[in-house]
């Protein structure tokens, strides 16, 4: 495999048309999204609902066409090579895991059926003993033992965690390079979440699978992701190595998010640095999308949307960036 990133996204933009007739308006769902994902790396996308994190996954899984921007997959310009829809080869290499393991499996079919389909469709197994063998291998890989029993089960016979493991096994069936995981643990019972996260982590280490992990749970992002990107109103407002980012958040929005996370030792009355509120996505005003909520807002924030700036404060590792006017040339704070 080449040394470069498996996936490179350049200046991605996605707008949705909303309203009808003469009053058609543009909703800016994603703006100036650029990042690289390497083999065996986990990038977490965190942010509140409506921030665009799932839209990134939809564009990358080719369920949505981007408005502009480029996607390079293994060095090739994907949108030029496959302009309309994804090829079979791309689909095999980029797989998805969804949030709801109750909705993503067909209640009328057995676990074996769910795994046989991609194996056959993508030519990864031959009908007969080979197929059976591969199904059992997949179930063993995701920790569903005894595999023979699980292969014959229907979704309703399993817990949420077991179903999510089936969904992971299904994604693994085609030997993907990248897994796009949309809130894969948020609907699972608390006691089994770590098991699923650890499974994802093992697969990353053993098979070099890269993940884009969408979550609103920042602690889980820190746990599994090498790098974390904070999304707000369709922008990546801050990013970098997960631990460094969460230990020294720069963007006022990231600071707000971290303050709001429930803390077992905390005092409920500790004031938040900013208020809740939703950004204006339809016909957005110029300037920083967080300006209307930001406690440290300056004149320039209302006029100019800040570009990404490399953070070079004390203790900042390479790869830290922020989109905020507070961090000009002087690197304040």
């Amino acid at each position, binding site marked *: 495999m080449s040394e470069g990133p498996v996936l490179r996204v350049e200046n991605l933009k996605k707008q949705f048309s909303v309203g009808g007739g003469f009053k058609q308006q543009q909703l800016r769902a994603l703006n100036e999204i650029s990042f690289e994902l390497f083999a065996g790396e986990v990038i977490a996308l965190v942010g*509140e*609902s409506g921030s665009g994190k799932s839209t990134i996954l939809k564009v990358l899984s080719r369920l949505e066409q981007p408005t502009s921007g480029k996607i390079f997959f293994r060095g090739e310009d994907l949108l030029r090579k496959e302009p309309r829809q994804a090829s079979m080869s791309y689909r095999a290499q980029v797989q998805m895991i969804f949030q709801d393991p109750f909705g993503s499996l067909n209640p009328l079919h057995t676990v074996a059926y769910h795994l046989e389909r991609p194996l056959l469709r993508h030519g990864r197994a031959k009908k007969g003993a080979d197929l059976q063998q591969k199904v059992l291998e997949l179930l063993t890989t995701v920790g569903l033992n005894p595999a023979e029993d699980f292969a014959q089960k229907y979704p309703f016979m399993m*817990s*949420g*965690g*077991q179903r999510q493991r089936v969904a992971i096994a299904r994604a693994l069936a085609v030997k993907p390079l990248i897994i796009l995981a949309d809130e894969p643990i948020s609907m699972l*019972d*608390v*006691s*089994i*979440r*770590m*098991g699923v*996260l*650890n499974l994802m982590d093992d697969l990353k280490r053993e098979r070099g699978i890269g993940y884009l992990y969408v979550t*609103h749970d*920042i*602690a*889980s992002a*820190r*746990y599994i992701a090498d790098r974390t990107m904070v999304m707000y109103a369709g922008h990546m407002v801050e990013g970098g190595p997960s*631990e460094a980012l*969460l*230990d020294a958040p720069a963007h006022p929005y990231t600071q*707000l*998010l*971290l*303050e*709001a*996370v*429930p*803390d*077992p*030792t*905390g005092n*409920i*009355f500790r004031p*938040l640095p*900013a*208020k*809740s509120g*939703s950004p204006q996505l339809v016909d957005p005003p110029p300037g920083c999308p967080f300006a209307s909520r930001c406690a440290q807002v300056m004149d320039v924030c209302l006029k100019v949307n800040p570009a990404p700036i490399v953070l070079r404060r004390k203790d900042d590792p390479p790869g830290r960036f922020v989109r905020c006017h507070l961090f000009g040339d002087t690197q304040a704070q």
Partner: protein
Amino acid sequence: MIEPTLLSVKNLSVEYVTARGPVRAVDDVSFEIKKGEVFGLAGESGSGKSTAAMAVMRLLQPPALITAGSVRYEGREILAMSEQELRAFRWKKIALVFQGAMNALNPVLTIGAQIADVIETHEKVAFSLARERAVELLELVGIESSRLESYPHQLSGGMRQRVVIAIALALNPPLLFMDEPTTALDVVVQKEILQQIAELKQRLGFSILFITHDLSLMLEFCDTVGILYAGRLCEVAPAKTLFGAPKHPYTRGLMNSFPDLHGPKRRQTGIAGSPPDIRSPPTGCRFHPRCPDVIDVCKTATPPLISLGPTHLGACHRATADGGES
């Protein structure tokens, strides 16, 4: 300082009648809520936390049946009340905030009308007076009075949840049941609403039964926490004690199921296995098939909830044998 007990639940059991026999969703649960206290019930799906709360309010419908126990509110037995007594009791004494504000409000009525409706029904006051109260209540939960004429769809999820809280507070109830009140909301909105509730609680002095599966949230918000597993209480303690020194292996496992936000990264394991199917719960201690400290007696005998300290209750054979040491 010992506050008087407001609600006392003793040996409560709830069963669902099914074609394959009774399923015990709440099994021998006892707890007390003191005046001004926030008591939390935490547990995974199917642990019986919502069923227990619904049973206390007598809101369960067949096939769910209360099969044993006593629920006393300031000494009055709720389980013995007639339908008529209940109508006067509910909402006036115990009000309920449901999960999912978006579904709890009537989409074709303004929020002002919905708040006023509660006051009118229970207090037999004129509509105009009820309206005035509605304005006060909205302001109490941090919504401008100009929103009185808004319909639910015109409000954000956080605002709708605030409206639901205003409706719950309409009759000044001494006790509020909150079932996952902020689960569907973003963290910032969640924190704001909880701060508001905590502030109102201090001002108005009501007690809260708080139900959630989010243990961090529970520990931050509650004074005392009860942990439910498969319908049984396995540990009850002040939130700070529970966080600092959990005694039940299930609670310890739960504490290890949340990744840390700070400090060195470490591999965390969560809890092996899955929550049991309560249609056929394990024998003995219901946690024993997943327990790292299991011994023989756990497989046959159900551990009773006993005192492990002045304010600490636990149901574990090991905690007993070790004198609460762990």
